[in-house]
């Protein structure tokens, strides 16, 4: 038995936490890779806004899109609902009312994560402290996941969080692929930038913490087709689209039956398997693919809300 209200809060808390971790990984990797790029290759911080989908909000309040303004917007800005800082705050607000459901240690971990973000987010803007802060966010979220994995019954509450986590990660992966890979495949590139493509493709993988697993799997350099195939279709890697969608589907199957949610999962899986990665070696084709996947994911999320959070279906 899980109350709809509690289900909704758990689902969104898991999404917010996953978003905070995902954003932290992306910013960390971008900060690392630009150090290696020659000055002729612009660092393109604006890319990050494309990934996290906050460009409009950013443009409204900032005239200059440079490293400091973009990183502070993504990491520490309380007015940006998608910032690491805000995401953690939203997650904590949602979980505050679920303390009777979560293992006690899990709430403590959420609090520690929150306190770390309150104390450290502002420092995270400066390059010197940035990695340390972002790694703290990632590590604290991983600790929370460890607590949930090892101490929480696999009941509907757990499944609801798992569902939210996979939906969010799936969404994030498609965005990274779209923006970072799309940029590499695009036309307007700096002179001699292609010399650094291997570095850049590795960096795409690293934004998803996928490089090591990719290397083990492929044993070759980071070629465009292989990278795209890995990120979309590598079912054994937990930060691939295929893995996340499978996680969404298996979670949905554990909840009270909803044909509408399961149908949306099937549609997303069909969309995923419908193109050959070779056909995606073109910025427009890849962008179209990512777009369709994101729409399919959003559709699953909408149907989850309709089936389980039930605002429309209830009397009164």
């Amino acid at each position: 038995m899980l109350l709809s209200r509690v289900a909704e809060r758990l689902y969104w808390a898991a999404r917010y936490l996953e978003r905070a971790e995902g954003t932290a990984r992306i910013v960390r990797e971008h900060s690392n890779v630009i150090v290696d790029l020659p000055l002729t290759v612009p660092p393109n911080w604006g890319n990050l806004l494309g990934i996290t989908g906050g460009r409009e909000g950013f443009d409204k309040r900032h005239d200059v899109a440079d490293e400091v303004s973009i990183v502070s917007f993504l990491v520490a800005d309380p007015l940006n609902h998608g910032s690491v800082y805000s995401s953690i705050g939203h997650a904590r607000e949602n979980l505050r009312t679920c303390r009777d459901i979560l293992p006690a240690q899990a709430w403590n971990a959420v609090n520690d994560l929150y306190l770390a973000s309150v104390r450290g987010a502002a420092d995270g803007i400066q390059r010197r402290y940035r990695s340390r802060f972002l790694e703290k966010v990632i590590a604290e979220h991983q600790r929370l996941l460890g607590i949930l994995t090892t101490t929480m019954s696999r009941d509907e509450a757990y499944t609801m969080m798992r569902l939210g986590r996979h939906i969010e990660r799936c969404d994030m992966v498609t965005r990274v692929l779209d923006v970072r890979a799309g940029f590499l495949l695009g036309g307007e590139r700096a002179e001699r930038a292609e010399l650094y493509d291997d570095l850049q493709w590795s960096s795409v993988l690293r934004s998803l913490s996928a490089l090591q697993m990719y290397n083990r799997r492929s044993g070759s350099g980071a070629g465009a087709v292989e990278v795209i195939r890995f990120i979309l279709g590598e079912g054994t890697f937990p930060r691939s689209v295929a893995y996340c969608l499978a996680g969404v589907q298996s979670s949905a199957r554990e909840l009270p039956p909803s044909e509408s949610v399961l149908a949306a999962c099937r549609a997303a899986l069909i969309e995923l398997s419908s193109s050959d990665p070779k056909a995606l070696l073109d910025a427009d084709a890849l962008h179209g693919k990512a777009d369709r996947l994101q729409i399919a994911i959003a559709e699953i999320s909408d149907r989850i809300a309709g089936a389980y959070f039930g605002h429309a279906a209830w009397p009164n």
Partner: protein
Amino acid sequence: MADLRTLPLLWDELVDGHGDPRPAAAALVERLRSLDIEELQQRQGLAEVDIVALGITFTVYHDGQGTDRAWPMDIVPRVIGSSEWARIEQGLKQRLAALNRFIDDVYHDRRIVADGIFPGELLDDSVNLRRECAGVSPKFGVWAHICGSDLVRDADGVVYVLEDNLRVPSGASYLLQNRAISKRAFADLFEKQSILPVDDYPDHLRRLLASLASDELQGVRHPQVVLLTPGVYNSAYFEHSFLAQQMGVPLVEGADLFVDTSDRVWMRTIDGPKPVDVIYRRIDDQFLDPEVFRKDSHLGAPGLMRAWCSGNVAIANAPGAGVADDKVVYAWAPDFIRYYLGEEPLLPNVPTYRCLYADELDYVVEHAAELVLKPANESGGYGLTIGSAATPEELEVAVAAIKADPRNWVAQPILKLSTAPTLCAGELAPRHVDLRPFVLSGHDTYVTMGGLTRVALVDGSLVVNSSQGGGSKDTWVVEDS
């Protein structure tokens, strides 16, 4: 070595006037005297770390902002002998039986008024009387299922009932948490003597709540119990969440519930509507049902009163139970015991002057400086004047208010609350304490073993409320026979 200081002319809970330990506290006092103050402070420090780690908090409101604070607990327990406790327990059971009979009578025939024992006019404008409850007969005839009585001990050692909290009393979760902490602080003493357990409270509470479900459910399904909270911004939210978790029942908010056209209560789950049979509500009557009470309330659910009146759902405490939780009605509690049970009260009331009666009013006016003057329908100490501490002007204002509205005022002698040694300001200092046991009434009556001891941490202060700088102690009922 820690010294146990006492105050002249006051009763101390651990040692007598000669500094000798009271019998039940002998082992504890011996231990306290064997430790130096630094060691005690170290144990206190560890307890405070545990409290933070366990997330034991309460919420303080200031400028509309709620802040979670660590629960203040003094590690030095308060001790009561089991034979004294047995008498207190009997007294509480007796008192609750009579109070429940009174509430039931109020909403039915009002025999007590017809028989001239209780003045009916006090009911007519009581703010806690709910006319909508007239004629309703809750199971077992019980209205106040969960009661948190406040007990105090005067200088002569007599334990009095100061207040009956019959609406939504809180504190039971802290009683349990204090025990968890004190077991760590004085682990060895728990091995050496029999300290009676308190941990079974959630079990008793769950069984009581389940027993309130309609008899028609027998053999149909297990009754579904829920705990209804006003939400995370309530100062007792920690307790709501803790008790729900301990009992394994859903913690619901008003918006999670709805009442259908056949007056049945449902909760909204991811698997569709599920029936609700018993509601342990932690919101006041006024917010329970906007169809009947406050129209602007979003804390309850429309139709709950319909469902309760039809017998489709049990509500604990029952709506309207607060009619017996009134500082004027309190004065008649000993009469209720005599009238309904035909027994003499085992636990005394604090003597209470009822300004409603001319002779008692005259006494109050004349002796205002020696009395506590209490308005009937305020709580949390609001509107209360302590005669000995008031300026002549303040006293004059209070007396004028009483003369203008005598039926809504009572007065009591100023009690000299007992003290217990408390670790503060680098010593074990005597600080005033009270005691809140919890009484569960249904088919049977259960009283917690001891209760929540609240302590005024400021020297000389009588204010024990945690929101105003009060602290708490574990209460040990120690086997002494």
